[in-house]
């Protein structure tokens, strides 16, 4: 495997890790506040659909993004209503929302676009394009030189290649996701809101007796979840791919939860876990590289299932003791 291939794989890992990372951070805020959210998948999916649908109809990816985030927030609000206000079972609410999103998106897509439950392909401004950072070799250079981009890159030195392929050229949401990691860390560990949020997931009674609203804190967590999942879903449909297809989240919501456990509910570790999962997904797309590495042919199905296998291994507790927030999953009832 040469350096260029490595860079290509890492580049693809980063793109594939982005939706995982956003969803994982969403789960982090939710679970840190004491609300288990198995419905990350639902929120990503609903956002993917609405962002693609609105981006297509309006021709603006930004309006699409807004629609996706709003849809995701509505779903987060429903989950909040069920699990915070009505103290329902959080797992059941999450599973119900997953089914709802899976069915609803296809149904509406068919009704609006008549293309077999998908949105039409997005082009131009209806999609997030890669951002060319200064001094990076990108499509504009290729156009100026009148040669294919791959040729230009093949001539570039390792440092330029690294910069142009891996650092530059991603859509804005990739950078947003990466910035969300330090931002989440800062909010959780350096602000009053973060202190209270972490406290409410550990012992809501302590927060309540300190005169702070448990319900208010948990709903604000839901808003953050809605925002982050909305970004994740929009990235899937308008950044990573060009349009919505049925069940396009493909279990990413669950993988994000596994990454969250792997990361033991910490933002920086979440970045690491999501990059690892992203790498596995990227490798599954490059069977040729895997074959060269291991010197025998691994079935592509096996590679495809690797992230899920790792998820099972992690969930079975092979990565050491992961202690979830203590009040997770339990509705808060004021005691006497």
């Amino acid at each position, binding site marked *: 495997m040469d350096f260029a291939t490595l860079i290509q794989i890492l580049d693809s890992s980063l793109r594939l890790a982005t939706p995982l990372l956003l969803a994982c951070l969403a789960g982090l805020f939710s679970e840190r506040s004491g609300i288990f959210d198995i419905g990350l998948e639902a929120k990503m999916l609903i956002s993917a659909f609405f962002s693609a649908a609105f981006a297509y109809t309006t021709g603006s990816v930004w309006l699409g993004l807004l629609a996706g985030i709003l849809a995701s927030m509505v779903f987060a609000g429903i989950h909040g209503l069920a699990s915070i206000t009505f103290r329902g079972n959080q797992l059941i609410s999450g599973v119900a929302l997953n089914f709802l999103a899976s069915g609803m998106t296809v149904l509406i897509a068919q009704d609006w676009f008549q293309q077999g439950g998908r949105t039409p392909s997005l082009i131009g401004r209806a999609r997030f394009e890669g951002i060319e950072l200064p001094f990076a070799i990108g499509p504009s250079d290729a156009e100026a030189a009148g040669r294919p981009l791959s040729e230009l890159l093949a001539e570039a030195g390792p440092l330029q290649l690294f910069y142009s392929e891996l650092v530059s050229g991603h859509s804005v949401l990739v950078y947003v996701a990466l910035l969300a990691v330090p931002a989440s860390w800062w909010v959780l560990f350096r602000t009053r809101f973060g202190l209270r949020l972490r406290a409410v997931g550990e012992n809501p009674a302590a927060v309540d007796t*300190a005169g702070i609203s448990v319900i208010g804190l948990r709903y604000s967590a839901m808003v953050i979840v809605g925002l982050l999942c909305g970004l994740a879903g929009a990235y899937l449909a308008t950044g990573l791919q060009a349009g919505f297809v049925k069940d396009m989240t493909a279990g990413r919501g669950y993988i994000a939860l596994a990454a969250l456990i792997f990361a033991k509910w910490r933002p920086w570790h979440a970045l690491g876990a999501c990059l690892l999962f992203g790498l596995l997904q990227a490798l599954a797309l490059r069977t040729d590289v895997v074959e060269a590495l291991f010197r025998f042919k691994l079935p592509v199905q096996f590679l495809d299932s690797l992230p899920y296998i790792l998820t099972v291994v992690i969930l079975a507790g092979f990565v050491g003791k992961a202690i979830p927030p203590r009040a997770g999953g339990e509705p808060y009832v004021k005691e006497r």
Partner: protein
Amino acid sequence: MKDLAEAAGQSSGAPPAIELRGISKAFGPVQANKDISLSVARGAIHGIIGENGAGKSTLMSILFGFYKADKGEILINGAQTEIPDSQAAIAAGIGMVFQHFKLVENFTVLENVVLGAEEGALLRTTMSKARAHLTKIAEDYEMNVDPDAKIEEIGVGQQQRVEILKSLYRNAEILILDEPTGVLTPAEADHLFRILRGLRDEGKTIILITHKLREIMEVTDTVSVMRRGEMTATVRTAETSPEALAELMVGRKVLLRVDKKPATPGATVLKVDNLRVVDDDKVERLKGVSFEVRAGEILGIAGVAGNGQSELLEVLGGMMAGTGLVEINGQSIDLTGKRSNGRSRRKRGIAHVPEDRQREGLIMDFTAWENMVFGYQWDPGHNNGWLMDNAGIRAETAGKMERFDVRPPDPHLAAKNFSGGNQQKIVLAREIERNPDLLLVGQPTRGVDIGAIEFIHQRIVDLRDAGKAILLVSVELDEIMGLSDRIAVMFDGRIMGERLPGETSEGELGLLMAGVTNAQEAG
């Protein structure tokens, strides 16, 4: 009531720190508080005593804004105050230390103290200011706690100090403590009382809710008694006695001392030699424990919680593996094998009343009659061939409930719907009525009303008088002193010494409980 506030040592005409007028609160058909009036002078320690369910906690929850009273008014320092939520209570200068601490376990002491009282949206400035402030309060009141220690790493005594510090950090002038000594050792309780006296001398007002008469007598200036939602009396502590208070609490004369004849020990029933236990975390919990219990005697194991008593009960009860020799009626017991479990122990005549009745003694969602056969469900008497004889079990349960005075005597009621004392009576009825040779009993009266305590103690003594051996583990020194025929003190997985209750004192036992051995020569 006014006269009393003056009597409590307030010479000036200052208004009382707290005055409640005609507070009533009902939960559905249950009247938790009925027309309660109370006046507590500033700079006094006021006790509120009453049985479980007497309405003490409800009253304090109203004062702390958890509940809104149906009727009545609250005056703080003479000014009428509405307390709709805890925020308002804190603003009115009221701090509350709950029985179950409201601390975030994996936060530091400092983080717990500032939670909800942060100064700005960012933590940095808040934290450094809070650290200085906290250190000062801690020094002023002799409450040394490492501000950077995590709550889960410090002992319960220290955790309680954090709770008090939390209130003081919020400038509380009135401090309410709900059953504060339930989790403390005698020494820690003494330290707490010193802190409370210090706070009082600084002019703070303290309300102490408890069901322990000894504490009321020791630390309070005035005391109110509650019974069935009503305030039955308010008196100066110096002018009353434990007996009088107990009678006011229960509504009848109560025997505070256990009435028992001298023991007549027979043959050795339980022999334990060099018993060792290593727990799941590879920590040695029992480090070679040896003792004997004879028929017709009660051996009491005293000690601060967490010194191996729980493990001792669990090994003997078959819930944990151990090494060493344990003999019952001269025959050794398998401590490690697959068949070393509760069922095999019961077959050998060992009955076990576990320390934590809600987790190990009962299934809270199951009915009384179902709970009454747990551990004995294989007994041929309960089965008709393949099926359980449910009707028979129910009938039997009704009889046992009557004999053990379980209220209400309804076999169909779920265990969680009984009060703590009645839950304990169900467990005791199940174990004692099997007529075991050896009864293991842990914390028999934890969280149990004074009236029920008397009954439970009497049943344990009756079993002894019937010639059975009893191993009693309790963190209540009073209970150990009153009930035991011999006392063994445990510290750090070892038995520090044995004493006879008539020939020792709480002071000497307290030293042994703290691991001070030279008391052995002195005693």
